């Protein structure tokens, strides 16, 4: 037990990877075995992160459950892990969504072994980013996550998967080039990559000094933009968003769940973990620009979603719209760091990350459920399906309402907090983003209208095309999501407490 106690984070991080290696040695062709083994393996990190969640002391500042190992001594990089309220929330989201995504993948029958292995490696990659307290480790995991996702889209995706996976890979890689260089620069400057020590050292640098022959302010500005672009692509911030609808739409269902649920959060997490603490001044200077982009994402994302005729693409664009609120909260906080408004905005932004993880994963899954049965995502080809699939319809309306930000469900709390926090700081942008909120309603209702309501499309009513109701396994995927959506909507204190303490201590 002692070993488990002291290595909780490493276990959460590496159990999936280890399980992936074990799968390699399992006999081929045993699809059922792969399904259940992977599901079991992915539940271990979930249980462990629950342990961490309950043992976590929110009132303390700084990182907890820290572990540090010698890794690359020559360049001063150590394998340093740890969590605070911000990263713990994201770890929980990841370990929660992965088993659900795997359960959602039970319908996959093509090269199951490889698929499941990739999924587990993906989980390790994402968790590593959230846990890393060493910039080099951070970068390693940042890139590690890309590879499985690329193959998942490229091998198990739908028609346009080559284009989508290449766009996704090249765009993200292109974005992270600057990140790598900036991290290297920090390493050269300080002789280490340790985030905890950087937090202290970085802001106390004498601004009159020169680094590498350049004034400190210039170096910081360059590094700031290198970080920002990498994270902006990942979030994605408008106008770097066009990879998202392609990648989300073409990915297999579970891949889209994880893409929207977790991968997008990596970018926002980067903003919160690295940019705000390391570059408060630059962030304040450029907060206005970031707010413009966030507002553009909210408004244009909503409009673009409204224009879609492909159900999955509609949901994909909704991510642009929702993540815009995260960025708006970050921009507001960057502009007025330290004020109570900023705290509220950040609380909202982080909660919105978690909430969007739940609702977007749910929405993508529900799109997948109907796609698996009808083999189409064209909204025009559905219509009036509610009587055929009443349970599915109810779940879809529920999840859609969460996505729409209906009060009483989770999305409202976070959006309200962002709006409340951003309003006194950035009133104009907040006001404009209300237009996006209005059109969120429009596209959500459009989706429900075209799929469930209206006259029944007889094609799906009988014969070989008869649409079947959502099955128990699929309901099981949705139940935890819906329960959390409702719980956070009614009583968010359990999670907001952790987030709030982290925000107060960090910024």
């Amino acid at each position, binding site marked *: 037990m002692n070993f488990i106690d002291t290595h909780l984070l490493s276990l959460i991080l590496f159990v999936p990877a280890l399980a992936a290696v074990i799968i390699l040695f399992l006999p081929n062709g045993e699809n059922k075995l792969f399904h259940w083994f992977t599901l079991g393996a992915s539940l271990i990190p979930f249980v462990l992160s629950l342990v961490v969640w309950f043992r976590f002391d929110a009132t303390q500042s700084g990182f907890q459950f820290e572990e540090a190992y010698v890794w690359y001594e020559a360049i001063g990089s150590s394998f340093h892990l740890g969590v605070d309220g911000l990263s713990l929330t994201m770890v929980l989201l990841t370990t929660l969504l992965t088993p659900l995504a795997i359960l959602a993948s039970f319908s996959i029958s093509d090269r199951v072994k490889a698929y499941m292995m990739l999924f587990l490696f993906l989980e390790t990659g994402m968790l590593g980013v959230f846990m890393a307290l060493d910039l080099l480790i951070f970068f390693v995991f940042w890139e590690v996550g890309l590879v499985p996702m690329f193959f998942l889209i490229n091998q198990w995706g739908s028609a346009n998967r080559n284009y989508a996976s290449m766009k996704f890979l090249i765009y993200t890689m292109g974005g992270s080039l600057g990140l790598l260089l900036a991290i290297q620069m920090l390493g050269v400057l300080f002789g280490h990559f340790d985030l905890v020590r950087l937090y202290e050292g970085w802001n106390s640098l004498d601004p009159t000094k020169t680094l590498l022959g350049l004034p400190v302010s210039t170096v910081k500005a360059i590094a700031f933009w290198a970080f920002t672009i990498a994270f902006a692509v990942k979030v994605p911030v408008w106008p770097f968003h066009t990879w998202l609808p392609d990648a989300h739409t073409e990915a297999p269902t579970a891949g889209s769940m994880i893409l929207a649920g977790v991968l997008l959060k990596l970018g926002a997490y980067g903003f919160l973990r690295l940019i705000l603490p390391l570059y408060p001044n630059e962030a304040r200077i450029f907060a206005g620009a970031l707010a413009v982009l966030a507002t553009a994402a909210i408004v244009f994302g909503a409009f673009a979603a409204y*224009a879609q005729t492909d159900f999955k693409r509609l949901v994909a664009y909704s991510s642009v719209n929702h993540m815009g609120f995260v960025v708006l909260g970050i921009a507001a906080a960057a502009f007025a760091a330290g004020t109570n408004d900023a705290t509220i905005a950040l609380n909202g932004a982080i909660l919105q990350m978690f909430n969007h993880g739940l609702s977007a994963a749910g929405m993508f899954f529900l799109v997948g459920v109907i796609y698996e049965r009808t083999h189409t995502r064209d909204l025009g080809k559905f219509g009036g399906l509610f009587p055929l699939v009443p349970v599915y319809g109810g779940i879809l309306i529920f999840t859609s309402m969460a996505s729409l930000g209906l009060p009483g469900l989770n999305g409202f709390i976070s959006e309200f907090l962002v709006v409340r926090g951003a309003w006194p700081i950035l009133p104009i942008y*907040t006001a404009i983003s*209300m*237009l996006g909120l209005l059109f969120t309603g429009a596209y959500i209702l459009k989706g429900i209208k075209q799929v469930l309501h209206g006259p029944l499309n007889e094609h799906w009513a009988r014969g070989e095309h008869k649409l079947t109701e959502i099955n128990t396994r699929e309901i099981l995927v949705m139940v935890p999501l819906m329960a959390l959506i409702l719980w956070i909507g009614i009583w968010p204190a359990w999670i907001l407490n952790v987030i709030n303490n982290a925000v107060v201590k960090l910024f």
Partner: protein
Amino acid sequence: MTTELLIWLIPLPPVLAFFLIVLLTNKNKALSHTIAVGAALLSWLGSMIVFVQALGVEHLGEHPLGGEPINWLPLGESVDTYFKIGVLVDPLSAVTLFFVAWTVLMIFLYSVGYHNFGQPVGDHDHPGLPPHGATVEEHGHQRSSPVGKHVVPSIEPMYSRFFAFIGLFAFGMFVLVLSDNLLTLFVGWEIMGLCSYLLIGFWYAKPSARDAAIKAFITTRIGDVFMLLGIAYLYSATGTLSFREIFTEGILHTLATVPSGVLGLSAAGLIGLLLFIGTIGKSAQFPLHVWLPDAMEGPTPVSAMIHAATMVSAGVYMVIRMFPLISLDPTTMAVVAFIGAFTALFAATIAVAQNDIKRVLAYSTISQLGFMIAALGIGAYVAAVFHLVTHAFFKALLFLGSGSVIHGMEHGVLHTGNHKVDPQDMFNMGGLRRKMPITFWTFLIGGFALSGFPIITAGFWSKDEILADAFGHGHTAVFVTLAVAAFLTAFYTMRQITLTFLGEARTKEAEHAQETPWTMTLPLVILAFFAVTYGWVGIPEHFPALGGLVPNWFHEFVGGTLAEHPEAVEFSVWPLLTSLFVALGGLTFGWLVYRNVNSAAEDRLQIPVLKNKYYFDEIYDRVFVKPAYWFAEAVIYKFMDQSVIDGILHIFGPVTDRLGSAIRNYFDLPVINRFFGDGSANVTYWFGGKLRAVQTGRIQQYLMLALVVFIGIGAALYFFLLA
């Protein structure tokens, strides 16, 4: 149980009913409606207990019930920065709770009969469409001698679902009324928005119902996003959303003096305006009124729910609740008064030309809400509340009554089998007073209350108070506008009563109409009781003859909500005469004109511009809806994302490709491959070729060559080393 706990518990039964029905009992219709009606009964009981206790509290306005709020959202370093939520029962919420609990219970009960509980399952009914009736074998008086088949109403296929939804709806309203802060009020507000969407679109397979549902949701959402901004503004300006804390002199004073920077309004003015836009959407005021008439697509109990008990009353309730804040800025108040008065008249003019029995009522709701808003805008706080309450009773009555009429007519339609007859068109009715006596008498009471029939109806007292306030405080324009609107109200109400109930049946269907079951008529009777008696609690003190007989309880009680008890307006005979004239005149005129009109063609008020509601739907469609979709699709998606942004991205592909091939064609191939690679190979090859000459295979030649080399090396050594 303490009163505080009881107040917390009031909203819960309906929401529990919602979850129970959805998750467990939706297959069992009887159990589902038992749960729902039982839940409404529990909430009603709780509300009545709380109401009675509230009556017993001295100075309830200053010492409202509700206890301490609890911590909800942690938002900063200290405990003070928690966002707290709680419940509050002050005079305003007490009287609102009273009418909400009653109307909700009545509507729940009525729904049992309306959805044909106890009737057979329809022959061809589908979920998502209204039931079409079931064929039954009828046995005559002598047993075992079937006299043939006939069609009777069939039970609603989604019966349980309906009760689940109205349960959630009631929950939203109770939350809204009992909240002690604007945020949970907004939660209830939006839950009702969802429920109105679900219920207007209850028969979702009908495209008209589906579109009406979306229209209702989106139109009210326009108001909601402004309201959300107002809430955010208020919260950041004052650090709280709690009514108790906002309505204190210090905070109100600050809000009134701080400029907002927009249009010269004070912070209070702008916040008030933003919140009021929320009301414009929710209470269907001009220019966001378009959704309410279309909301008729839902089942009739839903219309009663939306028009009386919950949704639109919520909008008015909110502005009344925020009155201390809104009244700080005269500009905002002027806007409120203008919108209210204009809407009151505007909607009344449309109502006179409608032939659908429910649509007339829909426009009358918009118009009556305009009365309340206008009253508020001129500062007549108590009058606005009074009219809100009386209107809720008589409008719930009228809607349920119209539902009963339609139900009776549908019976007739099923009997004749002629489905071309629209059971909602008043010109297909006539003479129903004999077929449906209970419905007739209760509808008459409701209609007279709506018209403001003097002395006996509640509507008279509340409307008269609004007019008296407008007159007494010198708001002549508002007074005249409302008086004209009141005249039209009486006129179209009498038109409706005349066409529906009086005269002779104009169709076979009307001849075969039938009175509805007790579950539908009992609520009508109870609501009719309140539509008459509720007015007597607010008779002005100086009213001729009647004044002072009973104390003006309503004014005393509700006036206590405000920090400064509002003065009752001085009695004047002119507004009284005006109210008498418009009510009686309108009723008489309506009867005189329509008693002999037998078809729509004979009706001179079928003016296209009124009939088509001033073409607002068409204008909005052209100006907002279609351009928005065009903008979304053509500009944002196709042009910006796909052409510009992806276009730029797609440049990288070919450019990289070209760069790659350029490097290959102009550097790799010629320089590396040809020059260095092939070049070195060629040189070696050439050299090898030349050397081949010496490799002849003859041993003598090799020895000879070796000797020559040996001599050469020896000579070189000698020359360099020894010499």
